[in-house]
Protein backbone atom coordinates (compact mmCIF):
# COMPACT_ATOMS: atom_id res chain seq x y z
CA UNK A 1 0.00 0.00 0.00
CA UNK A 2 1.31 3.44 -0.95
CA UNK A 3 2.01 5.68 2.02
CA UNK A 4 1.86 9.42 2.43
CA UNK A 5 5.51 10.50 2.48
CA UNK A 6 4.84 13.33 4.95
CA UNK A 7 3.02 11.14 7.46
CA UNK A 8 5.53 8.35 7.04
CA UNK A 9 8.47 10.68 7.58
CA UNK A 10 6.85 12.25 10.65
CA UNK A 11 6.27 8.85 12.23
CA UNK A 12 9.73 7.56 11.37
CA UNK A 13 11.20 10.79 12.75
CA UNK A 14 9.26 10.36 16.00
CA UNK A 15 10.54 6.80 16.23
CA UNK A 16 14.08 7.87 15.37
CA UNK A 17 14.02 10.51 18.12
CA UNK A 18 12.74 7.97 20.60
CA UNK A 19 15.30 5.36 19.59
CA UNK A 20 18.08 7.93 19.08
CA UNK A 21 18.92 6.77 15.57
CA UNK A 22 18.82 8.08 12.00
CA UNK A 23 15.26 8.27 10.52
CA UNK A 24 16.65 6.71 7.33
CA UNK A 25 17.33 3.56 9.31
CA UNK A 26 13.67 3.22 10.28
CA UNK A 27 11.78 1.27 7.62
CA UNK A 28 8.01 0.86 7.26
CA UNK A 29 8.50 -2.89 7.07
CA UNK A 30 10.11 -3.07 10.48
CA UNK A 31 8.30 -4.74 13.35
CA UNK A 32 8.09 -2.46 16.39
CA UNK A 33 8.95 -5.17 18.89
CA UNK A 34 11.02 -7.71 16.96
CA UNK A 35 13.05 -5.32 14.78
CA UNK A 36 13.13 -2.08 16.73
CA UNK A 37 13.16 -3.63 20.20
CA UNK A 38 10.24 -1.65 21.60
CA UNK A 39 8.60 -3.28 24.60
CA UNK A 40 4.89 -2.80 25.22
CA UNK A 41 5.52 0.28 27.39
CA UNK A 42 7.73 1.80 24.70
CA UNK A 43 5.01 1.25 22.07
CA UNK A 44 2.57 3.10 24.32
CA UNK A 45 5.04 5.97 24.70
CA UNK A 46 5.55 6.08 20.93
CA UNK A 47 1.82 6.21 20.28
CA UNK A 48 1.56 9.01 22.84
CA UNK A 49 4.05 11.00 20.76
CA UNK A 50 2.16 10.21 17.58
CA UNK A 51 -1.12 11.32 19.12
CA UNK A 52 0.55 14.65 19.86
CA UNK A 53 2.22 14.97 16.46
CA UNK A 54 -1.03 14.39 14.56
CA UNK A 55 -3.50 15.73 17.14
CA UNK A 56 -5.18 12.36 17.36
CA UNK A 57 -6.66 10.20 20.05
CA UNK A 58 -5.99 6.50 19.50
CA UNK A 59 -8.61 4.35 21.27
CA UNK A 60 -7.42 1.23 23.12
CA UNK A 61 -9.16 -1.12 20.68
CA UNK A 62 -7.11 0.31 17.79
CA UNK A 63 -3.81 -0.68 19.41
CA UNK A 64 -4.29 -4.27 18.30
CA UNK A 65 -2.74 -4.67 14.91
CA UNK A 66 -0.25 -1.82 15.19
CA UNK A 67 2.70 -4.17 15.01
CA UNK A 68 4.91 -2.62 12.33
CA UNK A 69 5.95 0.91 11.40
CA UNK A 70 3.84 0.48 8.25
CA UNK A 71 0.78 -0.42 10.33
CA UNK A 72 1.17 2.80 12.30
CA UNK A 73 1.63 4.87 9.13
CA UNK A 74 -1.45 3.30 7.50
CA UNK A 75 -3.47 3.77 10.64
CA UNK A 76 -2.59 7.47 10.91
CA UNK A 77 -3.31 7.97 7.20
CA UNK A 78 -6.68 6.32 7.63
CA UNK A 79 -7.51 8.46 10.64
CA UNK A 80 -6.43 11.66 8.93
CA UNK A 81 -7.87 10.71 5.57
CA UNK A 82 -5.99 10.59 2.27
CA UNK A 83 -4.11 13.82 1.63
CA UNK A 84 -6.57 14.96 -1.05
CA UNK A 85 -9.71 14.07 0.90
CA UNK A 86 -9.16 16.45 3.81
CA UNK A 87 -11.07 15.45 6.97
CA UNK A 88 -13.93 13.51 5.47
CA UNK A 89 -12.97 10.06 6.81
CA UNK A 90 -12.36 11.61 10.22
CA UNK A 91 -15.93 12.87 10.41
CA UNK A 92 -17.16 9.51 9.14
CA UNK A 93 -15.34 7.82 12.01
CA UNK A 94 -17.09 10.07 14.46
CA UNK A 95 -20.54 9.27 13.17
Amino acid at each position, binding site marked *: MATDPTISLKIRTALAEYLKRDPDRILVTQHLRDDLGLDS*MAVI*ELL*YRIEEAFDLQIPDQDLVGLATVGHVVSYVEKRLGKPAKSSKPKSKKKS
Partner: protein
Amino acid sequence: MRARVVVTGLGVVSPIGIGISDFWKAALAGQSGISAISSFDPFPMDGYRSKVAGQVRDFSADRFIDSVHGERVDRYAQFGLVAVKEALADSGLQMAKENPHRVGVIVGAGMGGMLMGEREITQLYQQQKPHRVHPNFIPVITLNSASGIIAIAYGAKGPNLTISTACSSSAHALGQALHCIREGRADVVIVVGADASITPLVFAGFCSLRALSSKYNDYPEKASRPFDRLRDGFVMGEGAGALILESAAHAKKRKARVYAEIAGYAATSEAYHMVIPREDGLEVAYTMKLALADAGLTPTQVDYINAHATATPIGDAVEVKAIRQLFKSRADKITINATKSLIGHTLGAAGAIGGIASVLALYTGKIHPTANYDDPDPACALAGLSRSAQERRVKVALLNAFGFGSNNAAVVFKQATAEGRRSKG
Protein backbone atom coordinates in the same frame (compact mmCIF):
# COMPACT_ATOMS: atom_id res chain seq x y z
CA MET B 1 25.18 -14.52 67.47
CA ARG B 2 23.61 -11.96 65.15
CA ALA B 3 25.50 -10.87 62.07
CA ARG B 4 27.57 -7.70 62.28
CA VAL B 5 26.93 -5.28 59.42
CA VAL B 6 29.50 -3.00 57.80
CA VAL B 7 29.62 -0.16 55.28
CA THR B 8 31.89 -0.87 52.31
CA GLY B 9 30.95 1.69 49.65
CA LEU B 10 29.81 5.30 49.44
CA GLY B 11 28.37 7.51 46.70
CA VAL B 12 26.82 10.96 46.70
CA VAL B 13 25.14 13.61 44.57
CA SER B 14 24.99 16.87 46.50
CA PRO B 15 24.88 20.64 46.13
CA ILE B 16 28.58 20.73 47.11
CA GLY B 17 29.76 18.02 44.78
CA ILE B 18 28.90 14.96 42.79
CA GLY B 19 31.14 12.18 44.07
CA ILE B 20 32.51 11.46 47.54
CA SER B 21 35.90 13.05 46.94
CA ASP B 22 34.50 16.44 45.89
CA PHE B 23 31.76 16.31 48.52
CA TRP B 24 34.12 15.55 51.39
CA LYS B 25 36.71 18.10 50.34
CA ALA B 26 34.02 20.81 50.13
CA ALA B 27 32.42 19.69 53.39
CA LEU B 28 35.67 19.86 55.35
CA ALA B 29 36.28 23.32 53.88
CA GLY B 30 32.84 24.40 55.09
CA GLN B 31 31.80 25.29 51.56
CA SER B 32 28.15 26.23 51.15
CA GLY B 33 26.04 24.70 48.40
CA ILE B 34 23.19 27.16 48.94
CA SER B 35 22.42 29.57 46.12
CA ALA B 36 19.59 31.75 44.83
CA ILE B 37 16.83 30.09 42.82
CA SER B 38 16.80 32.12 39.61
CA SER B 39 13.26 31.13 38.65
CA PHE B 40 10.85 28.25 38.43
CA ASP B 41 10.50 28.85 34.72
CA PRO B 42 7.98 30.23 33.84
CA PHE B 43 7.25 31.38 37.41
CA PRO B 44 9.24 34.36 38.67
CA MET B 45 10.40 34.05 42.27
CA ASP B 46 8.63 37.25 43.40
CA GLY B 47 5.73 35.44 45.02
CA TYR B 48 7.92 33.09 47.05
CA ARG B 49 8.94 34.07 50.58
CA SER B 50 12.10 32.01 50.37
CA LYS B 51 14.26 32.27 47.27
CA VAL B 52 17.28 30.11 48.10
CA ALA B 53 18.04 26.40 47.97
CA GLY B 54 20.79 23.80 47.89
CA GLN B 55 20.59 22.91 44.23
CA VAL B 56 22.62 20.32 42.36
CA ARG B 57 23.94 22.43 39.52
CA ASP B 58 24.69 21.26 35.98
CA PHE B 59 23.37 17.77 36.54
CA SER B 60 22.86 15.73 33.44
CA ALA B 61 22.00 12.10 34.09
CA ASP B 62 23.44 10.84 30.81
CA ARG B 63 26.87 12.14 31.81
CA PHE B 64 26.91 9.55 34.56
CA ILE B 65 24.56 6.68 33.81
CA ASP B 66 23.09 4.55 31.07
CA SER B 67 20.25 6.50 29.45
CA VAL B 68 18.11 3.34 29.22
CA HIS B 69 17.61 3.54 32.98
CA GLY B 70 17.98 7.28 33.55
CA GLU B 71 15.40 8.40 31.02
CA ARG B 72 12.54 6.46 32.52
CA VAL B 73 12.70 8.07 35.95
CA ASP B 74 12.50 11.47 37.60
CA ARG B 75 15.43 13.57 38.77
CA TYR B 76 15.47 12.13 42.31
CA ALA B 77 15.83 8.58 41.01
CA GLN B 78 18.53 9.72 38.56
CA PHE B 79 20.41 11.13 41.54
CA GLY B 80 19.97 7.75 43.23
CA LEU B 81 21.29 5.84 40.21
CA VAL B 82 24.37 8.07 40.03
CA ALA B 83 25.10 7.71 43.76
CA VAL B 84 24.68 3.92 43.58
CA LYS B 85 27.01 3.65 40.60
CA GLU B 86 29.74 5.37 42.60
CA ALA B 87 29.04 3.42 45.79
CA LEU B 88 29.14 0.03 44.06
CA ALA B 89 32.39 0.88 42.28
CA ASP B 90 33.80 2.15 45.58
CA SER B 91 32.85 -1.09 47.35
CA GLY B 92 34.47 -3.28 44.72
CA LEU B 93 31.34 -5.45 44.77
CA GLN B 94 30.86 -7.30 41.51
CA MET B 95 27.26 -8.23 40.92
CA ALA B 96 28.30 -10.98 38.50
CA LYS B 97 29.95 -12.80 41.40
CA GLU B 98 27.02 -12.34 43.81
CA ASN B 99 23.87 -14.39 44.31
CA PRO B 100 21.42 -11.74 43.03
CA HIS B 101 18.69 -12.86 45.43
CA ARG B 102 21.01 -11.99 48.34
CA VAL B 103 21.44 -8.36 47.24
CA GLY B 104 18.66 -5.98 48.27
CA VAL B 105 17.86 -2.33 47.63
CA ILE B 106 16.25 -0.09 50.24
CA VAL B 107 15.55 3.52 49.30
CA GLY B 108 14.39 6.38 51.47
CA ALA B 109 12.49 9.08 49.57
CA GLY B 110 10.29 11.81 50.96
CA MET B 111 8.64 13.36 47.94
CA GLY B 112 9.67 11.26 44.93
CA GLY B 113 9.03 12.16 41.31
CA MET B 114 7.59 15.62 41.80
CA LEU B 115 9.09 17.25 38.70
CA MET B 116 7.04 15.18 36.31
CA GLY B 117 4.18 15.00 38.77
CA GLU B 118 3.74 18.76 38.94
CA ARG B 119 4.15 19.21 35.19
CA GLU B 120 1.53 16.64 34.32
CA ILE B 121 -0.97 17.82 36.93
CA THR B 122 -0.61 21.42 35.74
CA GLN B 123 -1.11 20.45 32.11
CA LEU B 124 -4.13 18.32 32.90
CA TYR B 125 -5.85 21.09 34.82
CA GLN B 126 -4.98 23.76 32.27
CA GLN B 127 -5.73 21.82 29.11
CA GLN B 128 -8.33 19.36 30.42
CA LYS B 129 -7.01 16.67 28.12
CA PRO B 130 -6.77 13.45 30.13
CA HIS B 131 -5.45 11.56 27.12
CA ARG B 132 -2.39 13.85 27.10
CA VAL B 133 -1.18 12.68 30.53
CA HIS B 134 2.16 11.02 29.85
CA PRO B 135 2.08 7.20 29.88
CA ASN B 136 5.12 7.21 32.14
CA PHE B 137 3.43 9.43 34.73
CA ILE B 138 2.38 6.62 37.08
CA PRO B 139 5.66 4.64 36.99
CA VAL B 140 7.61 7.86 37.54
CA ILE B 141 5.63 9.25 40.46
CA THR B 142 5.17 5.92 42.21
CA LEU B 143 7.40 6.33 45.22
CA ASN B 144 9.35 3.12 44.63
CA SER B 145 10.52 4.15 41.17
CA ALA B 146 14.07 4.68 42.47
CA SER B 147 14.32 1.33 44.30
CA GLY B 148 12.85 -0.33 41.22
CA ILE B 149 15.18 1.20 38.64
CA ILE B 150 18.26 0.61 40.83
CA ALA B 151 17.41 -3.09 41.14
CA ILE B 152 16.77 -3.29 37.41
CA ALA B 153 20.03 -1.52 36.57
CA TYR B 154 22.14 -3.90 38.69
CA GLY B 155 20.09 -7.09 38.74
CA ALA B 156 19.58 -6.95 42.51
CA LYS B 157 16.81 -9.48 43.17
CA GLY B 158 16.74 -9.42 46.99
CA PRO B 159 14.37 -7.39 49.18
CA ASN B 160 13.36 -4.22 47.35
CA LEU B 161 11.76 -1.58 49.52
CA THR B 162 11.05 2.11 49.69
CA ILE B 163 10.63 3.90 52.98
CA SER B 164 8.88 7.25 53.04
CA THR B 165 8.88 8.99 56.37
CA ALA B 166 9.56 12.52 55.12
CA CYS B 167 12.89 13.85 56.40
CA SER B 168 13.90 10.69 58.25
CA SER B 169 13.28 8.36 55.27
CA SER B 170 16.82 7.28 54.52
CA ALA B 171 17.88 7.00 58.16
CA HIS B 172 15.14 4.38 58.39
CA ALA B 173 16.40 2.87 55.12
CA LEU B 174 19.79 2.41 56.81
CA GLY B 175 18.17 0.88 59.88
CA GLN B 176 15.90 -1.45 57.93
CA ALA B 177 18.88 -2.58 55.85
CA LEU B 178 20.80 -3.28 59.07
CA HIS B 179 17.94 -5.46 60.31
CA CYS B 180 17.58 -7.16 56.93
CA ILE B 181 21.22 -8.28 56.93
CA ARG B 182 21.28 -9.06 60.65
CA GLU B 183 18.31 -11.36 60.22
CA GLY B 184 20.01 -13.14 57.35
CA ARG B 185 17.60 -12.07 54.63
CA ALA B 186 20.39 -10.56 52.50
CA ASP B 187 24.18 -10.46 52.34
CA VAL B 188 24.27 -6.99 50.81
CA VAL B 189 21.79 -4.11 50.80
CA ILE B 190 22.24 -1.05 48.63
CA VAL B 191 20.90 1.79 50.77
CA VAL B 192 19.90 5.04 49.13
CA GLY B 193 18.34 8.31 50.17
CA ALA B 194 17.16 10.55 47.35
CA ASP B 195 14.96 13.57 46.80
CA ALA B 196 14.74 16.32 44.18
CA SER B 197 11.69 18.38 44.92
CA ILE B 198 12.81 21.99 44.60
CA THR B 199 9.78 22.40 42.37
CA PRO B 200 7.20 25.21 42.12
CA LEU B 201 4.50 23.45 44.12
CA VAL B 202 6.58 21.69 46.79
CA PHE B 203 8.67 24.80 47.38
CA ALA B 204 5.51 26.91 47.67
CA GLY B 205 4.10 24.37 50.11
CA PHE B 206 7.12 24.59 52.41
CA CYS B 207 6.96 28.41 52.13
CA SER B 208 3.29 28.33 53.14
CA LEU B 209 4.18 26.13 56.08
CA ARG B 210 6.56 28.93 57.17
CA ALA B 211 9.23 26.29 57.49
CA LEU B 212 11.83 27.84 55.17
CA SER B 213 14.42 30.53 55.82
CA SER B 214 13.37 33.82 54.26
CA LYS B 215 15.64 36.43 55.84
CA TYR B 216 18.71 35.59 53.86
CA ASN B 217 17.45 35.67 50.29
CA ASP B 218 20.15 38.19 49.39
CA TYR B 219 22.83 36.15 51.17
CA PRO B 220 22.09 32.56 50.19
CA GLU B 221 25.25 31.12 51.75
CA LYS B 222 24.18 32.52 55.13
CA ALA B 223 20.64 31.10 55.02
CA SER B 224 21.24 27.63 56.46
CA ARG B 225 22.41 28.26 60.03
CA PRO B 226 21.61 25.41 62.43
CA PHE B 227 22.02 26.20 66.14
CA ASP B 228 22.72 29.88 65.41
CA ARG B 229 20.75 32.55 67.25
CA LEU B 230 19.61 34.13 63.97
CA ARG B 231 18.37 30.95 62.27
CA ASP B 232 14.93 31.36 60.74
CA GLY B 233 14.00 28.06 59.15
CA PHE B 234 15.48 25.41 56.91
CA VAL B 235 16.79 25.72 53.38
CA MET B 236 15.56 23.15 50.90
CA GLY B 237 18.18 20.98 49.29
CA GLU B 238 18.27 18.11 46.84
CA GLY B 239 20.55 15.16 46.24
CA ALA B 240 21.19 11.51 46.96
CA GLY B 241 23.45 9.41 49.10
CA ALA B 242 24.20 5.71 48.69
CA LEU B 243 25.84 3.32 51.15
CA ILE B 244 26.68 -0.32 50.48
CA LEU B 245 25.87 -2.36 53.59
CA GLU B 246 26.92 -5.97 53.91
CA SER B 247 27.47 -8.58 56.56
CA ALA B 248 30.93 -8.38 58.07
CA ALA B 249 31.49 -12.00 57.07
CA HIS B 250 30.61 -11.27 53.45
CA ALA B 251 32.90 -8.23 53.41
CA LYS B 252 35.73 -10.22 54.97
CA LYS B 253 35.33 -13.04 52.48
CA ARG B 254 35.81 -10.70 49.54
CA LYS B 255 38.52 -8.70 51.38
CA ALA B 256 36.51 -5.49 51.09
CA ARG B 257 37.69 -2.24 52.61
CA VAL B 258 35.40 -1.43 55.54
CA TYR B 259 34.55 2.21 56.29
CA ALA B 260 32.63 1.54 59.48
CA GLU B 261 30.27 -0.82 61.22
CA ILE B 262 26.58 0.09 61.38
CA ALA B 263 25.72 -1.19 64.81
CA GLY B 264 22.37 0.10 66.01
CA TYR B 265 19.06 1.63 65.01
CA ALA B 266 15.86 2.81 66.61
CA ALA B 267 12.56 3.99 65.19
CA THR B 268 9.89 5.72 67.23
CA SER B 269 6.91 7.99 66.86
CA GLU B 270 6.23 10.94 69.11
CA ALA B 271 2.52 10.44 68.39
CA TYR B 272 2.24 14.15 69.00
CA HIS B 273 1.87 16.49 66.00
CA MET B 274 2.26 16.26 62.20
CA VAL B 275 4.96 18.94 61.93
CA ILE B 276 5.87 20.16 65.44
CA PRO B 277 8.25 18.21 67.71
CA ARG B 278 7.52 17.70 71.38
CA GLU B 279 9.24 20.58 73.13
CA ASP B 280 10.48 18.49 76.06
CA GLY B 281 12.74 16.40 73.79
CA LEU B 282 11.87 13.22 75.71
CA GLU B 283 11.04 11.13 72.67
CA VAL B 284 14.18 12.20 70.80
CA ALA B 285 16.31 11.30 73.81
CA TYR B 286 14.53 7.96 74.11
CA THR B 287 15.13 7.21 70.40
CA MET B 288 18.89 7.87 70.71
CA LYS B 289 19.02 5.71 73.85
CA LEU B 290 17.22 2.85 72.10
CA ALA B 291 19.58 2.98 69.12
CA LEU B 292 22.63 2.87 71.41
CA ALA B 293 21.13 -0.07 73.31
CA ASP B 294 20.54 -1.84 70.01
CA ALA B 295 24.25 -1.39 69.31
CA GLY B 296 25.15 -2.71 72.78
CA LEU B 297 26.59 0.69 73.72
CA THR B 298 25.96 3.28 76.40
CA PRO B 299 25.67 7.07 76.04
CA THR B 300 29.12 7.43 77.63
CA GLN B 301 30.72 5.87 74.55
CA VAL B 302 29.48 8.36 71.93
CA ASP B 303 32.17 10.63 70.41
CA TYR B 304 30.28 12.32 67.60
CA ILE B 305 26.70 13.20 66.65
CA ASN B 306 25.61 14.10 63.14
CA ALA B 307 22.60 16.13 64.22
CA HIS B 308 19.30 16.39 62.37
CA ALA B 309 19.59 20.17 62.87
CA THR B 310 17.52 21.66 60.08
CA ALA B 311 17.84 25.23 61.45
CA THR B 312 14.20 25.68 62.42
CA PRO B 313 13.95 27.67 65.66
CA ILE B 314 12.15 24.91 67.58
CA GLY B 315 13.70 21.80 66.04
CA ASP B 316 17.33 22.59 66.86
CA ALA B 317 16.51 23.58 70.44
CA VAL B 318 14.56 20.36 71.03
CA GLU B 319 17.40 18.23 69.65
CA VAL B 320 19.95 19.90 71.94
CA LYS B 321 17.60 19.55 74.91
CA ALA B 322 17.33 15.84 74.14
CA ILE B 323 21.11 15.48 73.80
CA ARG B 324 21.58 17.14 77.21
CA GLN B 325 18.96 14.88 78.77
CA LEU B 326 20.54 11.70 77.52
CA PHE B 327 24.25 12.48 77.64
CA LYS B 328 24.18 14.78 80.69
CA SER B 329 27.67 16.14 81.45
CA ARG B 330 29.14 14.24 78.51
CA ALA B 331 27.03 16.32 76.08
CA ASP B 332 29.74 18.99 75.91
CA LYS B 333 32.44 16.41 75.23
CA ILE B 334 30.74 15.08 72.11
CA THR B 335 31.70 16.59 68.76
CA ILE B 336 28.58 17.67 66.90
CA ASN B 337 27.89 19.02 63.43
CA ALA B 338 25.04 19.76 61.05
CA THR B 339 25.48 18.61 57.44
CA LYS B 340 22.42 20.67 56.48
CA SER B 341 24.39 23.86 57.18
CA LEU B 342 26.32 23.07 53.98
CA ILE B 343 23.79 21.52 51.61
CA GLY B 344 20.40 22.48 53.03
CA HIS B 345 17.77 19.94 53.92
CA THR B 346 17.70 17.26 51.27
CA LEU B 347 14.56 15.70 52.81
CA GLY B 348 14.54 11.99 51.99
CA ALA B 349 18.25 12.07 51.16
CA ALA B 350 19.24 13.73 54.44
CA GLY B 351 19.68 10.53 56.47
CA ALA B 352 21.87 8.89 53.86
CA ILE B 353 24.05 11.97 53.30
CA GLY B 354 24.32 12.51 57.07
CA GLY B 355 25.19 8.82 57.31
CA ILE B 356 27.98 9.31 54.78
CA ALA B 357 29.35 12.25 56.82
CA SER B 358 29.20 10.03 59.94
CA VAL B 359 30.96 7.12 58.26
CA LEU B 360 33.66 9.41 56.87
CA ALA B 361 34.18 10.93 60.33
CA LEU B 362 34.77 7.42 61.69
CA TYR B 363 37.05 6.51 58.82
CA THR B 364 39.10 9.70 58.52
CA GLY B 365 38.89 11.20 62.02
CA LYS B 366 37.72 14.46 60.49
CA ILE B 367 34.44 16.20 61.28
CA HIS B 368 33.15 18.82 58.89
CA PRO B 369 32.28 22.31 60.18
CA THR B 370 28.81 23.64 60.91
CA ALA B 371 28.55 26.63 58.60
CA ASN B 372 27.05 29.89 59.88
CA TYR B 373 27.27 28.91 63.54
CA ASP B 374 28.30 32.49 64.13
CA ASP B 375 26.31 33.46 67.18
CA PRO B 376 25.51 30.40 69.30
CA ASP B 377 21.93 30.33 70.48
CA PRO B 378 22.05 29.80 74.25
CA ALA B 379 19.05 27.48 73.85
CA CYS B 380 21.15 25.13 71.77
CA ALA B 381 24.76 25.82 72.60
CA LEU B 382 27.01 22.80 72.84
CA ALA B 383 30.76 22.90 73.27
CA GLY B 384 31.27 20.33 70.51
CA LEU B 385 29.85 22.55 67.76
CA SER B 386 32.27 24.47 65.60
CA ARG B 387 32.46 26.62 62.49
CA SER B 388 35.77 24.91 61.74
CA ALA B 389 36.60 21.36 60.78
CA GLN B 390 37.59 19.27 63.79
CA GLU B 391 39.89 16.30 64.14
CA ARG B 392 39.27 13.53 66.60
CA ARG B 393 39.43 9.79 66.72
CA VAL B 394 35.77 8.79 66.50
CA LYS B 395 34.94 5.32 67.78
CA VAL B 396 31.15 5.74 67.98
CA ALA B 397 28.97 8.07 65.92
CA LEU B 398 25.26 8.73 66.22
CA LEU B 399 23.07 9.93 63.36
CA ASN B 400 19.76 11.64 64.14
CA ALA B 401 16.89 12.10 61.71
CA PHE B 402 13.38 13.30 62.44
CA GLY B 403 10.47 13.56 60.05
CA PHE B 404 7.07 15.15 59.68
CA GLY B 405 4.39 12.85 60.97
CA SER B 406 5.98 12.78 64.45
CA ASN B 407 8.68 10.42 63.24
CA ASN B 408 12.11 9.80 64.82
CA ALA B 409 15.09 7.68 63.79
CA ALA B 410 18.58 7.22 65.19
CA VAL B 411 21.41 5.17 63.73
CA VAL B 412 24.67 4.17 65.44
CA PHE B 413 27.94 3.61 63.59
CA LYS B 414 31.15 2.19 65.09
CA GLN B 415 34.72 2.38 63.98
CA ALA B 416 35.71 -0.62 61.87
CA THR B 417 38.36 -3.02 63.06
CA ALA B 418 41.90 -2.22 61.95
CA GLU B 419 41.86 -5.30 59.73
CA GLY B 420 38.71 -4.17 57.88
CA ARG B 421 39.97 -0.63 57.42
CA ARG B 422 43.13 -1.88 55.74
CA SER B 423 41.51 -4.29 53.28
CA LYS B 424 40.56 -3.14 49.84
CA GLY B 425 38.44 -5.27 47.59
